[in-house]
């Protein structure tokens, strides 16, 4: 679009033809009041607050919906503009309750702010005010619709961003009411953004209700740590406590939205299960002790069980991918210094010889520009809400999306084809796709494709990939324990290379990329996690591990950690009976927002954050604990004043770059029923599991073992029976030979298969 020149309040500015006037005024720093306009939502032009005077137009024009043109002369402050703006302000206030003293939005209310400038001290309105009844729309959002000014931002958010129109306007005229259509209330995994977009106190945070005024809190920029996006957000704190989370803008990462998971997880920080003091187990009895005693005990234990005997090869270090990069690095450094090569972060993978190696080579903001995506093994909407949002945007621009899943999931955009395939058929389907592509490209077929049959599903996907100019193949976490995991990943890589597609690896979680970068995997000939668990070990250092949720087989884990002569140092944030059962020392560590650190997202964007609050009671950041432990072990090179020095040291290290062999080996002959076990979206880490409000939502309550009738018959199960402790749901949306478990419960050691 060509550049034009126009005049705003007498100042000549340049703009693009057809651009909306409000974008120009915003860019030029000219203040135009608005309520319904939101930069990421469609234009409604209904609040009329942004009326300005455009020379030549008989009526005042709304800046949000007036395209600019060459030579246009706009007055935002003259009598005509001001009169219109003040008129609209007066209308907005006549039925607004003006109950600011008891309104949660008070102090951060757009209506309040604009009223200061455009409102009048005295109202001419002497009639009774409108009162609107409220309905309960769920655990996350508090409504007070009498305050609603009908800007419809929440309605448009639902329709355009969340992809489900959960709020709508019913009734007309003065009786227009913004409310949910359904009794179930708001279900979207992005619903909390309605709180951010609501300009008034109609929609506010329910967990935060009546807690504090916005001006009492500090707002500290930080990074969300529950998924592969690393959404930018503000942690709002008061007297050392996290009180609320609000989204921050970052067009390359999360635009201006955050998922409910990122918004409400902070509640877990103050859960009564928080570990607050160091404790040691002396003759089978737990004792709360000082840090000095606890760390001495830990170091002494390590020395007496392991180091004294020069048995560092029987020491293991395991971490959860929720750890920060600095923590990962320091633990690795300690273990390396004492001569231990047994380190791993890949806790829930059954067969570490069969792992997914796949690059992520597409940027998040580029995802919305693709014209075709193939999603393999992911319930992407709930697992990675913000990545799903980008794909949804792509579909709105015309992109086609195919899935290859073991079960039908709820997508918030239309799919081109939803292919439901048994877990043991996914590799052969992808091989079929590759065969079809290579045949089309007149390439010589490798041996492993010789016997592959190309079915219609594979052929359709191949055609799509071949005809697309910007496509992406996305691999999700349902594949991690697939018998063909490695083959599936390698096939995806080759297919992508043959069709000039990108790949996106969503089979990993949280800070896995940082764990890989610092190389938190077995060193030299060290043991991997599964080998450690099967070996006789003298000691473990476990960082932020909750075996009931982090491993696929609890019994083995407990057995490995429990022996009397195995000295276990656990660094955790939350109490857990299983942990107290096997540990010898439990060191309470800072959780999210309580420590500084670094997170990597799926795009390898490195984002560091500071601690927003001090950890409670005697809790310390894990990086500090590890540093002191190293000092007590008298290891050299741990003189860090703060975590940024750790980061600086990491950035001078050669990064581990994993290579993949591209070797493809699959048999296509696995028998039996494949079980996919997944923690439900609000149970993927300890903080989330302790966030009480999230757990009350429908997503938080997800707990089912889904299978079709045929599988149920093979397993001898019927509805409401339990399978691996999870209620059985028989549905024909699941593929043959598959049980898909999505649970918010811990693995029960007794009921484990």
């Amino acid at each position, binding site marked *: 679009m060509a550049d034009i020149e126009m005049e705003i309040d007498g100042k000549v500015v340049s703009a693009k033809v057809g651009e909306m006037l409000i974008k120009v005024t915003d860019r030029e720093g000219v203040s135009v009041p608005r309520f319904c306009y939101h930069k990421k939502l469609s234009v*409604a032009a*209904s609040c009329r607050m942004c009326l300005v005077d455009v020379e030549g137009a008989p009526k005042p024009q709304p800046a949000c919906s007036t395209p600019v043109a060459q030579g246009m002369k706009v007055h935002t402050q003259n009598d005509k503009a001001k009169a219109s703006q003040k008129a609209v302000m007066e209308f907005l206030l006549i039925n607004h309750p003006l109950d600011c003293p008891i309104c949660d939005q008070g102090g951060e209310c757009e209506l309040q702010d604009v009223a200061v400038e455009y409102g009048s001290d005295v109202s*001419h309105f002497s009639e009774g005010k409108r009162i609107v009844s409220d309905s309960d729309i769920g655990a996350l959002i508090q409504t007070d619709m009498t305050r609603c000014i009908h800007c419809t931002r929440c309605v448009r958010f639902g329709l355009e961003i969340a992809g489900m129109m959960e709020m709508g306007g019913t009734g007309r005229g003065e009786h227009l009411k913004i409310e949910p259509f359904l009794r179930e209330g708001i279900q979207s995994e992005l619903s909390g953004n309605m709180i951010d977009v609501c300009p008034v106190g109609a929609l506010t945070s329910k967990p935060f209700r009546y807690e504090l005024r916005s001006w009492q809190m500090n707002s500290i920029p930080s990074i969300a740590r529950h998924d592969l996006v690393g959404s930018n957000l503000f942690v709002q704190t008061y007297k050392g406590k996290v009180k609320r989370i609000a989204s921050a803008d970052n067009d390359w990462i999360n635009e201006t939205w955050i998922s409910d998971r990122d918004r409400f997880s902070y509640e877990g920080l103050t859960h009564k299960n928080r570990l607050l003091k160091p404790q040691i187990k002396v003759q089978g009895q737990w004792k709360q002790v000082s840090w000095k005693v606890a760390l001495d005990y830990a170091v002494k234990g390590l020395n007496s069980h392991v180091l004294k005997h020069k048995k560092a090869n029987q020491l293991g270090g395991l971490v959860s991918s929720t750890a920060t990069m600095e923590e990962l690095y320091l633990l690795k450094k300690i273990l390396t210094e004492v001569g231990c090569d047994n380190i791993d972060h890949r806790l829930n993978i059954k067969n570490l010889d069969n792992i997914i190696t796949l690059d992520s080579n597409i940027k998040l903001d580029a995802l919305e520009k693709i014209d075709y995506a193939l999603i393999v093994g992911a319930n992407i909407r709930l697992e990675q809400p913000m990545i799903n949002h980008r794909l949804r945007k792509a579909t709105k621009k015309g992109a086609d999306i195919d899935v290859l899943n073991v079960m039908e999931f709820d997508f918030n955009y239309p799919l081109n084809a939803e292919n439901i395939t048994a877990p043991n058929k996914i590799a052969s389907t992808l091989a079929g796709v590759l065969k079809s592509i290579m045949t089309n490209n007149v390439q010589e077929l490798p041996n492993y494709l010789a016997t592959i049959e190309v079915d219609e599903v594979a052929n359709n996907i191949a055609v799509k990939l071949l005809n697309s100019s910007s496509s992406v193949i996305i691999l999700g976490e349902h594949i991690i324990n697939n018998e063909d995991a490695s083959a599936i990943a390698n096939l995806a890589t080759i297919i992508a290379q043959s069709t000039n597609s990108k790949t996106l690896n969503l089979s990993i979680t949280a800070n896995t990329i940082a764990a890989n970068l610092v190389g938190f995997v077995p060193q030299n000939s060290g043991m991997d996690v599964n080998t450690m668990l099967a070996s006789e070990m003298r000691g473990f250092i476990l960082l932020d591990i909750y075996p009931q949720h982090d491993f696929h087989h609890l019994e083995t884990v407990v057995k490995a950690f429990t022996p009397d002569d195995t000295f276990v140092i656990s660094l955790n944030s939350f109490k857990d009976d299983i942990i107290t059962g096997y540990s010898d020392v439990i060191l309470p560590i800072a959780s999210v927002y309580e420590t500084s650190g670094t997170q990597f997202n799926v795009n390898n964007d490195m984002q560091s954050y500071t601690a927003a609050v001090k950890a409670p009671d005697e809790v310390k950041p894990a990086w500090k604990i590890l540093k002191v432990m190293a000092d007590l072990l008298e290891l050299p090179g741990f003189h860090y004043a703060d975590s940024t020095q750790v980061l600086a040291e990491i950035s001078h290290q050669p990064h581990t770059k994993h290579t993949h062999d591209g070797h493809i080996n699959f048999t296509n002959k696995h028998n039996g029923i494949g079980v996919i076990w997944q923690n439900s979206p609000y149970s993927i880490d300890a903080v989330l599991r302790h966030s009480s409000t999230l757990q009350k939502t429908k997503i938080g309550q997800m707990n089912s073992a889904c299978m079709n009738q045929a599988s149920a018959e093979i397993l001898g199960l019927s509805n409401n029976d339990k399978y691996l402790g999870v209620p059985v749901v028989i549905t024909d949306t699941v593929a043959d030979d598959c049980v898909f478990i999505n649970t918010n419960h811990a693995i029960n050691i007794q009921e484990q298969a």
Partner: protein
Amino acid sequence: MNEVCFKNLTKDQCYSLKTYEASGGYSVWRKILKGQLTPEHIIDELKVSGLRGRGGAGFPTGLKWSFMPRHSDGQKYVVCNSDEGEPGTCKDRDILRFNPHAVIEGMAIGGFVMNASVGYNYIRGEFMAPFYRFEDALKEAYEAGLLGQNINNSSVNFDLYTHLGAGAYICGEETALLESIEGKKGQPRFKPPFPANVGLFGKSTTINNTESFASVPEIINRGGQWFADVGVENSGGCKLFSVSGHVKNPANFEVPMGTPFKDLLKMAGGMRDGAQLKAVIPGGSSTPVLTAEVAMSMTMDYDGIEKAGSMLGAGSVIIMDESTCMVAVLTRLAHFYYDESCGQCTPCREGTGWLYRVLKRIIDGNGKQGDIDLLLGVQDKIMGNTICALGDAAAMPVESFLRNFRKEFEYYIKHGKSMVKG
């Protein structure tokens, strides 16, 4: 009188295809099907005719049709606005009842001119009889091979559908009407973009009033100049006026533009019970009210009525005699707009309720000093600040009633009762 839309009014079964065709109906359409007429010719004739939109805005129809990007790609639509809801208007109802084929032919011609192969006639929800009558006519036209795909092997396509509204006044606003056809809540869209670019289902669309469409066949048949000559300068042809109120013979009259108001009043049988004329709303409830004196010297055409201080609107002439309490009339009108506002934009949603409540208070004898200024202030704040014209429509009567009959309002506020009724 009754030369265009009502020309068959007195004939037996005036609404039938037979009657319509006997008086030259569908001859234009048949010429089009034979390839004897070009879109350019039709637009030229319409421009010459001076036909202006009969729904109320009075935009020249020929010009409007020429705005359609007829050569652009994609589906295009013509839509007929038969959502006749303006208080005082009942002309389109009678066109649909007594001359439905003129609407069909007019829409088909429009479809040809604008390269739109699909048309919708949006009929007001309460118009059940006209709806059925129109549906019957549509069936006749299809059966006679006048509509459909590749009509008479002409390669001309035109399908016409009827859409029944659900009784919301706002759906008479053209973009709210489009939303309603799309199955959404009837709320006006902001403009630009205009329907000619982004209309029904996002496609180029032209919307005309029923009377406008019904006038087209006769204009093309008899020539634009003929039509123009029937009327006066700037107001071509004849126009249907719905005369209601305190007259002996309330009815629709199709008369040449420029007919003096007093003649129209005579046609309607003059004032009922020999009463004195007090006030006239000349173009439907949204147009400013006029005093008897001004009205009696006015001519019924766009310029004539504008000179008198009001608007021709949809040609809905509401006659009020000396027994009328203007405070009561305005309160009733205010309630109408309060009830019919869609609620989308702030000034109309909040302002119409405010206006009504103040008037209701006055009527109930609880008026306060300063209420007249308050009403004028509120209407001024609505005026020109809304998405669609409903806001202006609600505001305009307030201003004109207070300007022309202020004493009655002052009396009512002071004494708590009507100056007229006592």
